[in-house]
């Protein structure tokens, strides 16, 4: 009887513990086609992490964030972190998009088509230029929010702003928790 009671107690306490220490949010695999028709799976590579960024052409905040994304992709490519863009505009003009990718020098980064916005909904993406970082080892969410907090609606901070995504990737590679783990992303609202 005593053992039974104690075990229930411990179980309840573990529940209370889980309440104060948020558990990792698991992320299930998905496979999408990129704009050239190539199938790409989230856990298909040998990467340590994947940064997935909601993208649509014509969003000024997204456009201004591209150099930061490009720098992140370059910096962490060798360290096992990949960057994917997720197309959240179901009516994206692919020919115009490809031209824009060349101008922004990001044609080498995969652009994934998400026609029903199912992946966008799964991550609860609200805006373009919003990023999620997935720890592919733990298959869990490591960060969600702004790439950098430099760009606003018609505004650009004079200083470089906080490079949230970059810091989250560095923390993940060290086996640490991103701080902050969630930030508010500015960008263009996605219509669901």
């Amino acid at each position, binding site marked *: 009887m005593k053992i039974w009671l104690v075990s229930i*107690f411990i179980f309840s306490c573990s529940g*209370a513990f889980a309440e104060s220490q948020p558990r990792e949010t698991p992320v299930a695999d998905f496979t999408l086609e990129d704009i050239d028709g190539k199938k790409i799976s989230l856990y298909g590579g040998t990467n340590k992490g994947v940064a997935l960024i909601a993208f649509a052409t014509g969003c000024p905040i997204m*456009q201004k964030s591209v150099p930061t994304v490009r720098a992140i992709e370059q910096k962490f490519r060798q360290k096992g972190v990949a960057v994917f863009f997720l197309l959240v505009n179901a009516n994206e003009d692919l020919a115009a998009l490809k031209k824009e990718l060349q101008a922004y020098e990001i044609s080498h980064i995969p652009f994934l088509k998400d026609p029903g916005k199912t992946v966008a909904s799964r991550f609860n993406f609200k805006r373009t230029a919003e990023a999620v970082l997935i720890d592919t080892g733990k298959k869990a969410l490591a960060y969600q929010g702004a790439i950098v907090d430099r760009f606003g609606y018609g505004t650009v901070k004079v200083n470089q702003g906080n490079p949230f995504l970059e810091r989250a990737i560095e923390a993940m590679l060290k086996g640490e928790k991103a701080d902050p783990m969630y930030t508010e992303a500015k960008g263009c609202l996605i219509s669901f």
Partner: protein
Amino acid sequence: MRMKKRQKFIAAAVLSPLLALLGFWLYSESRKPSSEKQPQKTFVEDFRLLDHEGRVHDLYRMADASSIVLVSQQNGDAGLAAVAARLRELNSAWSPRGVRFLMINASAKDSREDIAAELERHGLALPVLVDAAQIVSSSLGLETTPEFAVIKPSLGWGLVYRGSLKGVVPALENAKPAPSMTSAQGKPIPYLRTDGIDYAETIAPILKKRCIVCHREGLYPPQNWRGYEDIREWGAMIRETVRKGLMPPMVADPAFGDIADHMLITPDETRWLISWIENGMPRGRGKDPLRHRRPSEAKVQLPTQSSPDFTLEMKEDIAIPAEGFLLYQYVKLGEIFTKDTWIKSLKLHSRVYPQIHHISLIRVPPALLKELSSKHGEKGAEQAYMTGKVSKFNIWSPGRTWVQYPKNSALKVEKGSQLVLELHYIGSGKPETDRIKVDFYYPPKSEKVRPLGNLLMTRKNFVVPPRRREFIVTTPKQTVDRPIFITSFFPHMHMRGKAIKSVATYPGGRSEVLVSAPAYDFNWQKGIRMRIPKKIPKGTELVTYCEYDNSGQNPNNPDPAAPVRWGQRSVENEMCVMNVIYYEGRE
């Protein structure tokens, strides 16, 4: 081992609450939203409204308030008399505790003057937000007047109470959300119909008229609105930017002065557009007007279709960095003028219109040009603005690639002068280059033109204190010593600038607001043109009021902790300038 009755009782007594707790925990875990950012159901989205005095109120700039109380109002409502005294008491008791009281009028017919008179009758001195489009009041669920809504910024902008006066104090005292929405007895708000709005008939024409003039190929992103399917994708963003007053940009309050090209959307158009988006953006029937746009509609033409009288172009490309800014570059435009030249209109050609922050034209007169050339050689003209001896004319307005000066006026370029461009760009995320070309047009031979000049209303040597939410700088009074006709105003402040207005006091003593930019934004360097040049009689006193917000609630503020002194650097310093373009009239 068998348990005794007493032991069973203790086990049950201990276990039941534990199991209940466990059950509750599992239930609450399952109810947690998938993201921590998920707004609660009664979350109030940001909005911008002008009050009855023409001041701008942005909800999310009130983040430092402990609560915001919005009171619905409409003129001729006897119910307001019953609550006015109590409302005054509440305001004086709770304002010191960080509660902000505002009223909101969604009658869609009460004028600002009538609202002011109504407030005076009730002895109230609160700002009344004019919600003529009714979108804010309806989204708050307000049904009658007077009805009270309590919003708590600290609870994720939660609407914690809506109803009659008696629930307001409990809602203010309660630190947790208590969504006790009651229906207040009162006069119904006359909401106008918002159903059955047709895309082809109503929405597409609004978009064409109010949005696509700028959001088009070669101008501002998003530029790819090829039809309904694109609008559907951008609908949520269109709704948000219109509700927040970011789009169309409010360059000046249309209630003051006869402004030629304000970019505002009407209250009816706003209501139709927002409700259509909120109702799920039905396509309806009819040909899609955006899909069948004629190519000519996508171009903004000069009023005159003739070829230019002369064209000047920068000698070299200028490089615009992918990130950040290219600030205040001075570049010569063409050679020294060999004869007096009058400019009636001009058209600006750029490879990167969306990246232009502002472009001004500076005329360097012969004597100054000579002096600077002897010191700096070829680069002489480009040093002219630093001397403070020249004035500048803004030649770029967001969305409009041409300038035409009003009838009977033109810009005179004296023989021996040279033109210089002041350029300021914002990076687009990719490296770009530009080489500005300007087409110039002479005035028609039949038109007798007078030279345009400029009058600066400005004050120097002031300091905006750190973290100050409202700080007003007044320019010294200037008396106009001859009659003038004002053709346009060009306000200039920096990142802390919030609002600016110019007031004329006529010789008889009557005062008038000539122009008011209540939501000044450094990112929108736009001149304010008068539809008909405004006559200012001799002896009129002119004054400009510049308002600054150096608090953390100003989203443009780079450093609220810094005292900001007068100066030309747009981040560290502030300026207070109203550049008035005019021509002289006759006595």
